[in-house]
């Protein structure tokens, strides 16, 4: 095992590279990234508006000196266009071939787009573009009330603009949090002035026309906007793996060691792996998972055979409220209030499935929810 190639130079890919070096790996590490920029932190992109070029350095995942010490064969601004698992090679857009003994797919996701246009937000360049378009906008329609859509709606409303949030779900993030917390989130956004249209799919977007943009709903209403943002989820970036011999279905399908083939691994948003803790497949698009899974993949490349069985963690900041989750929540799981009540400004909930706590949620309760994490996997008191 002398040559590791990592496709994807963001949080997951960098975690693999850094961990390999920390563990004493002395071979070649090729790190291939589609963006020209060195790896940066993405969650902050939806935590403030008006990013400018000068902000980039604050988002770097690795400071330049530490990055240099990783001694990488670094190929930034290079897209991998094909892989061959049988021969152990990668093909890059510039025609180069990169041979590998172990391959890590860490290509993440791309934002889903809708016919008719609308800005999306995934990269730092997207954030700069969004800031430029927001400059003169008074009225912003945000299609999709997931993490990104809700965080953006909060920022837009807090900036004094009209924020209009649209989603076919009954309430913001209902698929994530279940009805009770989604209703609480709806109340928060309503109180802070976000206009919301829930339970109605979008019929048509006209965001590419000059002047006012339109978003038509399926019930016949028309929403007018200066700017349309589309935040309707994302797709694993796996199209380049067609014909590679690497199994793909809603991401790269891996076993509990994050292994898709004997020498092929996946980490981060793109990995659809079997989490033995919950005995089910998962593909997690959260920041914490990118690092944790990258660390696990590096260990497994080095022969540690460490099953990756995290209690998933995510958070979202909306207005001045912080929601943090450990484990699995939402769906039909029964909600139990551990501390406070859902109507108040600070509470901790447990989500119970088959008699055991599958996950815990803290609303403005960072210390409380961290302590409650120990209850995951146990029956409620």
């Amino acid at each position: 095992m002398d040559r590791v190639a990592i496709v994807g130079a963001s949080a997951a890919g960098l975690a693999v590279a850094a961990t390999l070096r920390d563990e004493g790996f002395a071979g070649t590490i090729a790190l291939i990234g589609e963006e020209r920029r060195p790896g940066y932190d993405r969650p902050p992109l939806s935590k403030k508006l008006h990013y400018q070029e000068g902000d980039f350095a604050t988002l770097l995942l690795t400071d330049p000196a530490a990055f240099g010490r990783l001694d990488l064969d670094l190929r930034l601004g290079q897209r991998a266009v094909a892989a061959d698992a049988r021969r152990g090679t990668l093909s890059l857009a510039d025609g180069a071939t990169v041979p590998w003994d172990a391959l890590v797919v860490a290509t993440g996701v791309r934002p889903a787009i809708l016919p008719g246009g609308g800005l999306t937000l995934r990269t730092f360049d997207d954030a700069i573009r969004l800031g430029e378009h927001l400059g003169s906008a008074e009225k912003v329609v945000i299609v999709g009330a997931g993490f990104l859509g809700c965080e953006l709606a909060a920022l837009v409303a807090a900036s004094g603009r009209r924020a209009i949030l649209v989603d076919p779900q009954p309430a913001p993030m209902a698929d994530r949090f279940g009805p009770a917390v989604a209703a609480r989130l709806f109340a928060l956004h309503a109180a802070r002035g976000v206009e919301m249209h829930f339970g109605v799919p979008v019929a048509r977007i006209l965001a590419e026309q000059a002047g006012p943009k339109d978003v038509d709903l399926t019930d016949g209403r028309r929403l007018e906007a200066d700017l349309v943002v589309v935040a309707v989820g994302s797709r694993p970036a796996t199209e380049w793996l067609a014909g590679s011999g690497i199994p793909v279905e809603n991401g790269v399908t891996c076993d509990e060691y994050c292994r898709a083939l004997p020498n092929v691994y996946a980490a981060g948003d793109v990995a659809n792996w079997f989490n033995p803790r919950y005995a089910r497949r998962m593909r997690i698009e959260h920041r914490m998972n990118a690092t944790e899974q990258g660390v696990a993949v590096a260990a497994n490349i080095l022969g540690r055979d460490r099953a990756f069985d995290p209690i998933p963690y995510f958070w979202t900041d909306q207005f001045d409220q912080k929601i943090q989750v450990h484990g699995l929540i939402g769906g039909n799981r029964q909600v139990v209030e551990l501390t406070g009540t859902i109507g108040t400004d600070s509470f901790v909930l447990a989500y119970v499935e088959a008699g055991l706590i599958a996950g815990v949620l803290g609303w403005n309760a960072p210390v409380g929810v961290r302590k409650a994490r120990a209850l995951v996997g146990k029956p409620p008191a």
Partner: protein
Amino acid sequence: MGKIKIHIDQVKCVGAGQCVMASPQVFDQREEDGIVFLLMDEAPADLVASVRKAAKLCPAVAITLEEQ
């Protein structure tokens, strides 16, 4: 392995508490907003491994380490 000096960027910190779980003798969180503070500025040799783990896991890249 020598001591290690620890810095927290409280502006970047998102209050995840991963560092507190990795190294509870070194890191703690403010009750009101979860922002992390240090219980010691320098980690002795026996805590260095846990501090390195905390820095690596931090989902906000808010922990930097300075070898002594």
